[in-house]
């Protein structure tokens, strides 16, 4: 039983849901958020608190952090998992989709890092894990805005690692390969196979691959690891 206070964004489904269940099963206290309310339940439900919030909306995000400060007085880890994709040729991408992707992925991540740092600095320790993607280093056609929003997350990760080092906070990122969630449901199989072929290890990622990297960043012994991006699959 570890009893860490872990904040995870985008916990309604996909990787976020699995991360929440994983850390709850480890005995951590998990605070989650998403735009809609999750339907899942676990046996450690009493250790889970959900906020219905859009990560890109400062007004609904701030109360999450007040809650954490008031209820727990500290925050040990933030996992910035919430993210959306827009998989389309850039010529066919409306500005509205582009803004939503950048708002959720890049600005949402920025806002959570900023607010988390304010709480974490009080105890001179904390771990932040952001979500990158292999779409950025692989320069995937059809994912210009998505890959760009995540490239920005890499920059944020590297610079915030320096800005927050004095507060004892590490900031790192995990860059998953395709994992079978709703996020990639719309992508044609043939395109997926071409993508997998560009990985050193050619298989889909699974949730455990992500847990492993996040666990590594969260470990107490990882206090000298910051500003790093670990891509899965050998990309």
């Amino acid at each position, binding site marked *: 039983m570890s009893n860490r206070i872990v904040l995870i964004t985008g916990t309604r489904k996909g990787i976020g849901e699995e991360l929440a269940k994983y850390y709850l099963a480890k005995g951590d206290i998990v605070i989650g958020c998403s735009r809609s309310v999750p339907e899942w339940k676990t046996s450690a439900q009493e250790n889970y608190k959900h906020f219905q919030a859009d990560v890109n909306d400062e007004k609904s995000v*701030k109360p999450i952090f*007040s809650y954490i400060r008031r209820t727990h007085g500290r925050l040990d880890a933030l996992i910035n998992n919430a993210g959306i994709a827009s998989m389309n040729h850039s010529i066919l991408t409306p500005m509205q989709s582009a803004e939503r992707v950048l708002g959720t992925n890049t600005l949402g991540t920025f806002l959570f890092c900023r607010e988390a740092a304010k709480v974490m*600095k009080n105890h001179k320790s904390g771990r932040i894990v952001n979500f990158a993607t292999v779409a950025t280093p692989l320069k995937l056609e059809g994912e210009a805005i998505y890959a760009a929003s995540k490239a920005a997350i890499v920059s944020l990760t590297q610079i915030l690692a320096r800005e927050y080092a*004095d*507060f004892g906070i590490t900031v790192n990122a995990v860059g998953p390969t395709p994992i079978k969630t709703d996020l990639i449901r719309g992508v044609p199989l043939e395109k997926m196979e071409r993508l997998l072929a560009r990985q050193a290890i050619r298989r889909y990622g699974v949730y455990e691959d992500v847990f492993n990297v996040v666990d590594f960043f969260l470990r107490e012994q990882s206090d000298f690891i910051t500003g790093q991006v670990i891509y899965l699959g050998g990309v």
Partner: protein
Amino acid sequence: MDKILGLITKEIHGFNKTLDTPINLDKGKESVLFGRDSNLQSIDFVSLIASIEQAVSDEYGKELSLVDARAMSQKNSPFRTVGSLAEYINEILKED
């Protein structure tokens, strides 16, 4: 206003314990926080502003951001002295 001033000074007192050169509060409201006559390092400034923001938010049960675009663009920075910061917070609290 006095309550806000009290909150700010309390935070600074706590914060001073962590500083090599503490913030001098002898001048009351005119005590310099940040700017030309301040020896506060920027990392300490960031940290102090965040602590004061949390203290005010807890005391008034209201979410607020001290560092918004308006604060950063004001000609006379609200972060210059203890008094100007108190006035600025007072203004923010009066809104909505």
